């Protein structure tokens, strides 16, 4: 269990997170949505233990996250940041192998895991390419493969404590991906949360993707928790309009009525906004 209690973060006079309490379970796919500057990244940075909140705290498996030995923590949770600065020409495989640094496995096993992670992210054919020669979207997929290699199971029974408490934190992992890779990524995350029992917390801007794949959606606005629940409950026309300042119609998805489908309106209070006039 990953739990944030009464979390507050300030930067100077502005409040980045305001008394937030959320909980995440292994095996759950949770997506955090909200406008730019809502505190999504700040929340992730608190959850991964990088940022110490001004108030409140984060616990992973009943232990404050700061008390975890760094190396053990690195085997229990992996983090994909919004941007990566790597500009040295490592081969793609070497980049993914860096995800194995916290593990004391043998080389062959590391390579097998890295190859599998690359395959999952549709990067198998990039293996020997220089990372710096890849496109933005390809780099993002390779970085995703790196965090998968970090968190994916080695010997499932070897670490009972971390095994029950593995988390993957992803900050906008789809921002540079084309449409089909966005869907492929989310299908992959869903599978990982189900089959490998990993808790996945992911920020995302495409609300229809969230609606289709998330077990739970968390809506943040100006550092405050606006809603937390299944997409069907959380995504209401009123909430979206309040938080994103955008008028939408929400209808059941034609293929699956349990999935809400958000359609931006062309008219706002009878006035055309995006009607191409």
């Amino acid at each position, binding site marked *: 269990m990953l739990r944030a209690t009464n979390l507050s973060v300030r930067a100077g006079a502005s409040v980045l997170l305001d008394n937030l309490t959320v909980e995440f379970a292994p095996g759950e796919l949770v997506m955090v949505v909200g406008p730019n500057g809502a505190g999504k990244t700040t929340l992730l940075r608190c959850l991964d233990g990088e940022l110490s909140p001004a108030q409140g705290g984060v616990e992973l498996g009943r232990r404050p996250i700061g008390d975890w030995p760094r190396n053990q923590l690195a085997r229990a949770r*992996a983090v994909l940041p919004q941007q990566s*600065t790597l500009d*040295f020409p*490592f081969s793609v495989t070497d980049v993914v192998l*860096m995800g194995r640094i*916290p593990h004391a496995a043998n080389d062959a096993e590391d390579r097998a895991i890295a190859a599998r992670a690359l395959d999952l992210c549709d990067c198998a054919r990039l293996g020997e390419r220089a990372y*710096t*020669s890849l496109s933005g979207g390809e780099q993002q997929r390779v970085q995703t493969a790196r965090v998968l290699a970090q968190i994916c199971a080695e010997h499932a029974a070897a670490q009972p404590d971390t095994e029950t408490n593995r988390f993957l934190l992803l900050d906008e992992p789809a921002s540079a991906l084309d449409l089909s890779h966005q869907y492929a990524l989310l299908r992959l995350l869903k599978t990982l949360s189900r089959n490998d029992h990993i808790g996945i917390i992911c920020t995302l801007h495409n609300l229809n993707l969230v609606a289709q794949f998330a077990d739970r959606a968390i809506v943040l606005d100006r550092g405050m928790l606006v809603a937390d629940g299944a997409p069907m409950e959380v995504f209401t026309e009123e909430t979206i309009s309040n938080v994103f300042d955008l008028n939408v119609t929400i209808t059941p998805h034609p293929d699956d009525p349990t999935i809400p489908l958000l359609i931006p309106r062309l008219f706002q209070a009878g006035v055309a906004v995006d009607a191409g006039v």
Partner: protein
Amino acid sequence: MLLTALLLAVAVYSLTSGAVSTGLREVTARLPAALAAIFSPYDATANVAAADDRLVMILAEIRIPRLLLGLIVGAGLAICGTVMQGLFRNPMADPGLLGVSSGAALGAVLTIVLGGELFGRLMLSAGVWLLPATAFGGGLLSLFIIHRLSVVGGKTDIATMLLAGIAVNAITGAFIGLISYIADDAQLRDLIFWSLGSLQITDWRKLLVAMAVIVPALLLLPRYGDALNANLLGESEAGHLGIEMEKVKRQLIILVALVVGIAVSLSGVIGFVGLLVPHLIRILTGPDHRLLLPASALFGATLLVGADIVARTAVAPAEIPIGIITALLGGPFFLWLLVRFHRARSLY
């Protein structure tokens, strides 16, 4: 493998060349006697034998210490350059850039010129240790100032650190200039020769001091390969991968200050080794620090010993300061690298 072979070849050639030129066979024949003279300085028979044979003397007193100094200084400077480039995720970083070298140089220059007044009797009693210690002190002080300035809230800001390095370089440069101005003629000649770098060493005790510090550091530094690799992903990412980056940075900075301080105190300011070697090795091995660190050390040692051969033989029996050789060879070569690889957008 290739690098080790290259290093051995250069080392052997270095022993055979010099103002008095000698054949390989003569050197190998006399090596045991020379080593005996080195390892038992108070053994009368060994020393008598040594005194009888001029070449044994040359080997024991000049060429072997010089070779060893070249090896450890070259390896030390190159591995420090590699560490700094990895730490700053910036291929332009090297100990000179950080102000470590110039800080160490200031410490050493102060001791050379004002040592008599400042330390008085201490200068006589602690002679061997004094210069390395003040150079290390100067290097560490520069690093400490830069580190204090650029570490905010437990995180190091790379841009601030680089800019602070430039400022420290300027300040120490000014002080060195000032001290040179008040130095007398003999000291000034010492200063100039020393500031251009030289591997000339006649005091075995100094060499042992240097080896006692640099050799352990050379063995320790390659263990940071994984940490430096992860650091290239970004400092937070390294943390996410379970590496305590703040601790690692502190350790690396002290090790670098030690190695550079000792190297500068013994051989002056030898530029370009720390910058050039990591680049060359990256072309061969790629950017993986687990390979890059030991390979840089090997090649740095090879390069410096090679440059020293040129320094000793080009205008024999006179000597060219080795800093001039490394700059003359290194500068144009580095420019060529820049043009060639910048065009291919794969400078590092």
